[in-house]
């Protein structure tokens, strides 16, 4: 019986449009959760996949011990693809020529991600493709000249003779940060045993490369990690590319924006449900007077809510999935080999969000509605339906639960929740002050203005929730708009237009003048020459360092860096370095060293410690005078150790320099290679292009989120204005009956909303500025600078948004003839 009544009422309510606001709010909450979490995952996975190309795999396990078959077997059990790679420095002999080179040994399946490009020829412009087969060596271009060899010649490596197969054109995981390394050579894993280079004690880096689905990789990592020894560690991704921190910030931002969007949508749902309940109080009283029990009413209205929830959920899931699909498609345009992965997480997250919103925001007003006593039927107007304490509490709990659910971070969610609550409290207090001020202001104003002020004052008190939600909505829109600009600006600053994209390494003292004249001739702007000397850290405070980790974990001896370091000397602190402790070299500094913070921590080095370096067989001792933080994401030469100029000036050094070369002039690089054959040119064009692509992708995602936030904010405004519709109808009917003209009512209405918008915009601006300045200083580490645009945009946005939305919803009421309006009001 109740079902047929419920069904009939449901369809009629749908056509009356009241349930749509609730439905749309829930739809928006679900849609934004699904799309945001899906898009975040998509962008993240795209970035991971792109970063994977920098390490030629999805995951890399580094080891100083020979390969263990059990690790490979375990990976293969989990359907992961594997490859092995070894790296060591060794001498190459070709006739009378000999040269130290970095030998990279790879298995046939290398690389798992990215592309290894080898060509049969001795220059990178060679056209004939080649593949790595046992018995062959592929050389970096400069080695052909240095060794005086050509394709097909034989080179001795250890005890083996191997044939030159061609040139390395692109090596996906070539080191970026290690400028000035030895020339590189690639050979096959099958040949390594015959060279007899791998002996106990020889310094060899082993890498296991893995690729596969995220889920399998995660399982693999979590199972394998506890079994790893001190010699084995997972390679961190973020050091390998300039996108690690950009990705992290974008993720944080998406998270924050998503949370706030949900909160807004949930508020809209709560307001709409309250209004719905308010409007149905009398209907429920009538039905009860006619003999319905509370349980029957709950079934009727509960089924309405359930249908709305199911409908919104379904639409939200579909819309969210469509948005994810669109973004994945967009990513595929950038990344042709991007593998879109379907994830259930956004879907269940969206469903859970919908249930929480419905239960904790919308169900409470509906529950109270059903408890309306039958006696209300004789009261007119029906009792005002205000938010009760329980609803405030359940609403607050719901907001926090959503924040926690979505972020998965307890502290962040509590912090953000308290922040929102604090803002609400400040707004409430400010609204109280303003309303008090509005009274004296009203005196001596024109009657339309008086009416507007009077209306504003009365309604603000009747529902100060309205001003809070308006302000919060505008605040969020402003905050996200400016944060987005800040974030994008920061990324762009990281790689400014015209930043050096070609790095020159191994420049000898005598080559500097050749390079300078070449640069002058071709209008190239060379940067600073960084001197580089290779050296090994051998002791700290008279304590000799182990050069490798040993099996004896209890050894008290400190483990060194394990390879030669690029040492430089500079009189000035580089721009992208930041002193954490100590002070930079004074003009007459003697025997000092500035150490990079991470390596200082790893080596347990403190200010004042003495470091002993072995440079070309000589020992040099330097005292640690400062610890520096280095921005590894900057595409600049970075150094672990910077020594005071007095120490190294007498050692023969090579230099690093960099310049910007536009894409159409790359042919100059060939000229340069002929002119200075021993200088290595490292082009970071690809990396810059990739970073720019990623910035573009993330920017699109951020704009999409801003759009969602704006829609959610507008929806809150609509729900709020709708909530006062009834009261306005009554007032308008009375005013019209009393002879108020259309123009008068229109002006009063527009003014009321403009004032409300200005107030909300003003509050929003103030809060947004405080928040932005905090974020600017805490997160982006930028100097304090006010956002002047915000100060006009906030109030203007408030006035325009609130007035337009208010007018759009209420203009219909103004057009209804007075008599008809009166009848409508009288008939309820």
């Amino acid at each position, binding site marked *: *019986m109740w079902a*047929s*009544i419920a069904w*009939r*009422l449901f369809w*009629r*309510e749908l056509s*009356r449009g009241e349930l749509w606001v609730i439905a749309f709010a829930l739809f928006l909450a679900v849609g934004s959760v699904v799309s945001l979490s899906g898009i975040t995952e998509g962008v993240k996975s795209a970035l991971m996949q792109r970063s994977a190309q920098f390490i030629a795999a999805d995951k890399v396990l580094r080891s100083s011990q020979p390969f263990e078959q059990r690790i490979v077997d375990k990976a293969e059990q989990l359907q992961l693809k594997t490859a092995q790679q070894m790296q060591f420095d060794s001498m190459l002999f070709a006739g009378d020529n000999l040269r130290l080179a970095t030998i990279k040994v790879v298995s046939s399946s290398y690389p798992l991600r990215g592309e290894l490009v080898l060509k049969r020829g001795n220059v990178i412009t060679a056209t004939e493709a080649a593949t790595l087969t046992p018995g062959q060596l592929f050389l970096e271009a400069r080695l052909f000249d240095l060794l005086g060899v050509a394709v097909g010649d034989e080179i001795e490596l250890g005890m083996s003779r191997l044939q030159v197969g061609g040139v390395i054109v692109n090596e996906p995981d070539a080191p970026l940060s290690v400028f000035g390394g030895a020339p590189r050579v690639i050979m096959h894993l099958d040949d390594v045993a015959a060279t007899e280079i791998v002996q106990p004690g020889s310094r060899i880096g082993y890498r296991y490369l893995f690729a596969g689905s995220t889920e399998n990789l995660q399982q693999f990592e979590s199972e394998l990690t506890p079994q790893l020894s001190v010699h084995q560690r997972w390679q961190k991704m973020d050091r390998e590319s300039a996108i690690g921190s950009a990705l992290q910030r974008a993720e944080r931002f998406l998270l924050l924006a998503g949370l706030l969007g949900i909160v807004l949508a949930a508020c809209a749902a709560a307001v709409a449900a309250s209004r719905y309940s308010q409007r149905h109080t*009398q*209907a429920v009283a*009538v*039905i*009860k*007077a*006619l*003999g*319905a*029990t*509370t*349980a*029957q009413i709950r079934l009727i209205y509960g089924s309405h809510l359930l249908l709305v929830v199911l409908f919104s959920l379904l639409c939200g899931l579909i819309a969210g999935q469509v948005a994810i699909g669109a973004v994945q498609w967009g990513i595929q345009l950038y990344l042709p080999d991007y593998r879109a992965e379907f994830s259930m997480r956004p879907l269940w997250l969206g469903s859970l969000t919908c249930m929480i919103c419905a239960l904790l925001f919308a169900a409470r007003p509906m529950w109270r509605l059903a408890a309306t*006593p*039958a*006696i209300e*039927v*004789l009261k*007119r107007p029906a009792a005002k339906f205000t938010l009760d304490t329980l609803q405030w509490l359940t609403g607050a709990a719901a907001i926090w639960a959503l924040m926690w659910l979505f972020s998965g971070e307890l502290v962040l969610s509590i912090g953000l929740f308290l922040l929102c609550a604090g803002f609400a409290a400040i707004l409430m207090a400010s609204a109280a002050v303003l309303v008090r001020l509005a009274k004296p202001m009203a005196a001596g104003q024109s009657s339309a203005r008086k009416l507007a002020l009077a209306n504003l004052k009365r309604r603000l008190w009747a529902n100060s929730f309205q001003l809070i939600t308006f302000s919060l909505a505008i605040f969020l829109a402003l905050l996200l708009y400016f944060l987005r600009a800040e974030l994008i600006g920061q990324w762009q600053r990281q790689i400014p237009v015209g930043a050096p994209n070609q790095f020159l390494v191994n420049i000898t003292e005598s080559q500097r003048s050749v390079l300078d004249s070449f640069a002058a001739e071709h209008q190239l702007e060379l940067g600073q020459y960084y001197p580089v000397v290779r050296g090994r850290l051998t002791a700290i405070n008279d304590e000799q360092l182990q050069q490798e980790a040993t099996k004896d974990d209890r050894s008290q001896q400190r483990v060194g860096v394990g390879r030669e370091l690029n040492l430089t000397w500079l009189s000035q602190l580089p721009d992208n370095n930041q002193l954490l402790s100590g002070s930079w070299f004074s003009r007459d500094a003697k025997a000092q060293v500035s150490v990079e913070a991470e390596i200082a921590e790893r080596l347990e080095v403190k200010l004042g410690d003495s470091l002993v370096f072995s440079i070309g067989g000589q020992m040099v001792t330097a005292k640690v005078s400062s610890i520096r933080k280095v921005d590894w994401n900057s595409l600049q030469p970075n150094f672990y150790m910077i020594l005071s100029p007095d120490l190294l000036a007498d050692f023969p050094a090579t230099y690093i320099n960099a310049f910007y070369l536009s894409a159409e002039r790359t042919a100059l690089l060939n000229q340069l290679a002929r002119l200075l054959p021993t200088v290595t040119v490292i082009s970071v064009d690809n990396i810059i292009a990739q970073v720019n692509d990623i910035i573009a992708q993330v920017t699109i995602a951020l704009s999409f989120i801003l759009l969602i936030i704006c829609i959610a904010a507008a929806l809150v405004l609509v729900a709020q204005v709708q909530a006062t519709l009834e009261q306005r109808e009554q007032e308008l009917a009375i005013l019209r009956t009393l002879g108020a003209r259309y123009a008068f009512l229109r002006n009063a209405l527009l003014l009321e909303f403009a004032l409300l918008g200005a107030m909300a915009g003003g509050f929003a601006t103030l809060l947004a500025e405080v928040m932005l300045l905090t974020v600017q200083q805490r997160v982006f580490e930028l100097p304090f600078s006010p956002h002047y645009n915000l100060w006009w945009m906030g109030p203007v946005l408030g006035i325009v948004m609130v007035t337009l939305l208010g007018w759009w919803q209420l203009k219909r009421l103004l057009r209804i003839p007075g008599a008809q309006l009166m009848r*409508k009001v*009288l*008939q*309820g």
Partner: protein
Amino acid sequence: MNTPEVHINAVKLAKTVKLTEGSLTILHDISLTINRGETVAIVGASGSGKSTLLSLLAGLDLPSHGEVYLAGRPLHTLSEDERAAVRAADVGFVFQSFLLLPSLTALENITLPAELAGIKDARSRGLALLEQVGLSARADFFPAQLSGGEQQRVAIARAFITRPAVLFADEPSANLDAATGQKIEDLLFTLNAEQGTTLVLVTHNNDLAQRCQRQYRMQAGRFIDSDLKGLANVG
């Protein structure tokens, strides 16, 4: 001579409401008896407490003191839902402002109480009543599409669909012009007579009150000068 059956019996009813400034007693010590099939008017000016009395007699509200029985059932001891069940089975209402559900058609408004009471032939009963109130052609109209008089006719049809033993009417013609109001009153009394329903009518209109067999006059929450014919059986 048959002893009339007592249908509604109120004993020393009082209603006090709490206000922020203290409490206000709306009804003082009201006792009355209404027999089955009787038509009784409760007359008084605005604020005299007549609507409050009606709400207690119909079980819409509970008294602060006193007892009220409807067909022998002690309404003052029943819960909201138990009283709802009593209303569903035995009570019909006609309100001053009609109180039709705006989202249901005329016919659906009429059949609503029957559906709530689980009556199977609700639709055919509803159509018959529409016919009786002269609104067959308006069955699928929504309240907003009907005039005030038409809406009240629908409300009367709704009140009779469950064939209630007692009908409570709260100022049924107050919102209507004199001619329409007259027609509505005629319709109410006609249907009442046909179904032998006990009618309790609250009004400030003396002419309307005179059409009832008995009148209770109220002032400031007390009876004054009531027609005492029916009080013989107060017990």
